[in-house]
């Protein structure tokens, strides 16, 4: 009996040590990968033309947005991003007028796209998402033919556990769908949407309620309207599925979405919306239930500047 126990002790010791060593190896490899991934991302961020707005100023073109003057001062405090201009005013009342932001703008008000080089270098980069004063500052990939292509790849297509932010294939920037859904990994390191769950705190939300999406055509400014936990449901489930809402063609479709997100919201953001408004939905995995998701929905508010066409 003692012999069996002795053998058992040896086996368990060996197994325990192997697992411990393997975990350490994985951990070290992960840290190296994260470092490399961040380095690549920094290189990509470095190619953002932060001089674009300055160029605009010298050219004397007027973007005719009230917040423009604030942009310049705010941008100094927000890591050099050219348009992190959030002025702190509540813009929730100007909803309907801003819905069709991409149309009707005269060519004379267009400015150089700070992300133009990045868009030109990779057609899969549909946009660039920035939440000022957070780590969220990433390209958004769109591959309609294979939604998950960049789920475990960086923006250059290299294998990367962090993956990239991906724009849902049923969302579209041109023509713009009512709702743009962006999925991102909830990484423990805080990369991608690793810090999105900070929005559970109302105070955090109030300090980070502005979301910016740079596209090839223009800069879109959003304000957080709802924050909630949800989940991916089974096909048979007839419940509100936030990830199924892309286009509101009727008032009923809009109301259904709007009422549901407002009901689910963890707190009242004070922002309202009406039929015709556009939204961005940031979604990441959480584990309060199986297939849990943490969701931040923001409404498009006053539009930013329009950009010159990107030369590809």
């Amino acid at each position, binding site marked *: 009996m*003692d012999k069996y*126990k*002795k053998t*058992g*002790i040896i086996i*368990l*010791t060996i197994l*325990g*040590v192997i*697992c*411990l060593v*393997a*975990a350490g190896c*994985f951990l070290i490899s*992960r840290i190296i990968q994260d470092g490399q991934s961040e380095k690549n991302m920094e290189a990509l961020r470095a190619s953002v033309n932060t001089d674009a707005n300055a160029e605009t100023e010298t050219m004397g073109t007027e973007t005719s947005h009230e917040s423009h003057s604030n942009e310049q001062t705010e941008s100094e405090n927000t890591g050099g991003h050219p348009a992190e201009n959030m002025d702190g005013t509540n813009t929730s009342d100007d909803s309907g007028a801003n819905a069709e932001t991409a149309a009707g703008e005269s*060519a*004379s008000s267009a400015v150089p796209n700070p992300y133009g080089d990045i868009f030109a270098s990779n057609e899969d980069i549909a946009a660039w998402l920035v939440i000022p004063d957070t780590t969220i500052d990433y390209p958004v990939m769109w591959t*309609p033919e*294979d*939604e998950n292509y960049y*789920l475990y790849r960086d923006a250059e297509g290299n294998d990367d556990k962090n993956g990239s932010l*991906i724009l*849902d*294939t*049923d969302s*579209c920037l*041109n*023509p713009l769908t009512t709702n743009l859904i962006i*999925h991102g*990994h*909830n990484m*423990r390191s805080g990369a*991608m*949407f690793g810090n999105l769950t900070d929005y559970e705190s109302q105070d955090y939300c109030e300090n980070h309620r502005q979301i910016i999406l740079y596209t090839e055509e223009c800069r879109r400014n959003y304000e957080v309207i709802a924050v909630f936990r949800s989940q*991916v*449901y*089974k*096909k*048979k*489930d*007839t*419940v*509100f*599925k*936030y*990830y*199924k*809402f892309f286009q*509101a*063609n*009727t008032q*009923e*479709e809009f109301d*259904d*979405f709007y009422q*549901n997100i407002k009901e689910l919201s963890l707190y009242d953001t004070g922002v309202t919306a009406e039929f015709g408004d556009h939204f961005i939905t940031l*979604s990441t*995995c959480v584990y309060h239930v199986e*297939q849990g*998701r943490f969701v931040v929905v923001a409404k498009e508010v006053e539009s930013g500047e329009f950009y010159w066409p990107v030369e590809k």
Partner: protein
Amino acid sequence: MKKIKKILTLLIAAALLVLMPGANTLTASAEEPVTYYVKYLSDDNQWRFQTGSTWSDTVQHRELYYLYQDIKDGDSVIIEGANPGFILEVSVRLSNVTFLHGSAAVVTAKSIDECYVLRDSVAAVNGDVTNAYVYDNARCTFNNNVGTLQVLNDPARNDTLLRGTVSVGGTVNHLIGKDNDKTHYEFYNFAAGTLSITDGDVKTDAAYYSTSASAGTTQTTNTSQSSASQTSSDEYDDVPKTGESSPVFWLLGVSAVCFAGRYVLKKTA
């Protein structure tokens, strides 16, 4: 002296620029959308095109090569002719594509805002379509998503029958079948690859679409093309999995169990 000459030259050049009409204004203009009329000419035995929304025998027509060179976002294309079928492959957004009566063509575009398939036509469309209209007995396959699809009768006929045959590879947000007077059917949120209409009748299983416009409570179907074949209702909707899968915690857990087992065995030994 040289400096004075330079200054004078510059002043004269500046004065000329100001005085010359038009030279002192900087104007920028966007190119206007163009409509291309593509037609099969049996005499020439080839497809040719003209710009404009009608074909004129008195206007010179050109090789399609030039169409491919010039076509841009927002342009429109009208197709007339069937033999041989026309294949248009462009990577721009087309604002309008019209298949005239009796035409046969395959159109591939980045996206199409409005697509009209008229009587007797046979068409295949690659690229998302915002609004599609299929008239009378036209046959059409949309291989990507369609926003609103209307199956219509031909006003020239004296009946109200819908005869269109349509299949869609992607999703369809809104399907309407109607004639001049009444709506025959109206359905919503078709799952990817499920919409099938034969001779005007919807052949899709009712499980794959909704009869009301509500976006949130009626979408029991899957909108992803890749999972269109998955019919089990016990499966989860197809949404990207954005959790972090790390074996480190599992390995640490197993290791802890092993050491705990070892401790127990050693104590009882």
